[in-house]
């Protein structure tokens, strides 16, 4: 198919070619904004920027911030190094090295991430890792924007830092059992949204078994 071209002719008569009237018109637009914003009544002022960081815009509930790693009820990391997040990551920013627990109790999950690193500079903040995680281990609901760093390597978050924002998951360790349908009739209560002030509350929450 040949490229379709559309010729648009801008009509410029003497009036426009004189420049001056158009300049005055343009000045009128900008000066209108100027005078409204300086002398106009407060209700009509149109300033859209805010005095960041003294004033912080409220982040939307589903804002995707810095990653965190959730913990199990015993405080260990929920992640099982299944690599789902690393596989789906379109930016290849997640690096996981799996390890095997030395002496697991019989029902413990043997596999865990020895190394879990996310390069937040490479991350494109798409949230696919959270979608892909089958264990509710990785989340981006910290409401924390990645702080600026001096060296690139400082932007690589390692396991302890990722876990420092972690909370207990709303999921039940080992699964809820075969009668989960009877236990959780209201699935809506399981999809509550995380807020930073929930961290403390979640730490206090008794284990649900």
């Amino acid at each position: 198919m040949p490229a379709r071209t559309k010729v648009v002719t801008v009509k410029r008569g003497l009036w426009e070619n004189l420049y001056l009237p158009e300049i005055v018109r343009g000045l009128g637009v900008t000066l209108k904004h100027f005078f409204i914003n300086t002398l106009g009544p407060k209700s009509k002022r149109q300033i859209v920027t805010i005095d960041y960081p003294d004033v912080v815009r409220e982040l939307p509930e589903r804002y995707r911030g810095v990653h965190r790693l959730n913990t199990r009820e015993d405080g260990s990391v929920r992640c099982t190094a299944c690599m789902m997040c690393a596989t789906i990551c379109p930016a290849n920013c997640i690096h996981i090295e799996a390890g095997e627990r030395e002496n697991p109790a019989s029902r413990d999950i043997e596999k865990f991430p020895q190394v879990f690193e996310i390069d937040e500079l490479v991350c494109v903040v798409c949230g696919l890792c959270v979608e892909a995680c089958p264990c509710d281990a990785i989340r981006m609901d910290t409401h924390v924007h990645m702080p600026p760093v001096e060296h690139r390597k400082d932007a690589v978050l390692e396991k302890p830092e990722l876990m420092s924002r972690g909370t207990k998951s709303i999921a039940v360790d080992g699964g809820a059992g075969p009668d989960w349908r009877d236990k959780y009739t209201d699935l809506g209560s399981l999809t509550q949204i995380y807020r930073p002030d929930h961290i403390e509350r979640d730490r206090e929450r008794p284990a649900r078994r």
Partner: protein
Amino acid sequence: MGEIVIWALVKIAILFGFALNLSAVLTWMERRQSAMMQDRMGPVKANISGVTLWGLLHPLADALKLATKEDFVPPKAHKAIFVLAPLFAIAPVVMVFAVIPFAPPVCLKQLTAIAPRCVAPEHMQIARIDIGLLYVFAIASISVYGAALAGWASYNNYSLLGGLRASAQMLSYEITMGMALIGTFLVFGTLEPGELVLRQSTIAKWGIVQQPLGFILFFFAAIAETKRAPFDLPEGESEIVGYFVEYSGARFMTFFLGEFLEIVFVGCMVTTIFLGGWQAPGLAADGLHIFGLDLQLPHIAVVGLGLVTFTIKVFIVCFLQLAIRWSLPRMRYDQLMRLGWKGMLPASIINVIITAAVVLWMSSPVKG
């Protein structure tokens, strides 16, 4: 003799206190005004223990920052010229202020009296020379050296190109600027700024009324001379780096200050030539006579009012310059040249011819 020196020092102090402070305020105003025009907040952060004064402390912070920054000289730069270029840029601007009349003539012996007629007036300009405006043109054209030498001495292709752009632009628009004023000279018959102001005693006699085309041409040519948007091709900081890209710290501050002093100077020139200088409507030597009001004022108050009038007018012209900068997009270089040589220069010549014809007709014996 001693009196002359004291008068000179006083006038220098007043004028430069005014010009330097205004240019400092303009650096803040430029940012706050543009912010308000674009629905932003602008700089409001600088504070001394919480007092921000709407951001007015920013010029101070900027000066401190620039003064303490590393003074970088490119290794292959021509050291002497690199160091001298900022001075070449700022010195002419400082010098041309000498001829600006910033207040009515002062009669020292009648300060507190109502003085309709002044005895032995002391003219409020640093240098009262008959060819004052020619002096301005002569000195102002030197400032192109600052830009050209800075660009050349930096040993940077971008700087050099910026310097070349600056030279061509300033030379082109200087012609228009001169031609635009010839009409004014013809009308007022003087080249002495103080005299020029005295002859604009009423609004009908103001330059802008008698020479509207001359005013527009001069104003825009002057903006082009100050190298500001929409004519900021020598130093388009956001896209095309310019002649002082290699400058930093105090040297950069010198260029920066020079630019804002130029704004103030354009304001002073436009005020003096076209807006009646310190003349205010109804302000006469013995008091205010406006809207039926007949207020007798002592001489010192009249001088003060003249000074205030002058300041307000300069400030408005500066405001207009900033507003133009933040409203119009930058021209392309070919458009700039076409406008200068094919638009404004012919227009200014036509203005001269028409003015000359009218002046000739007005003064001809046929009419008289």
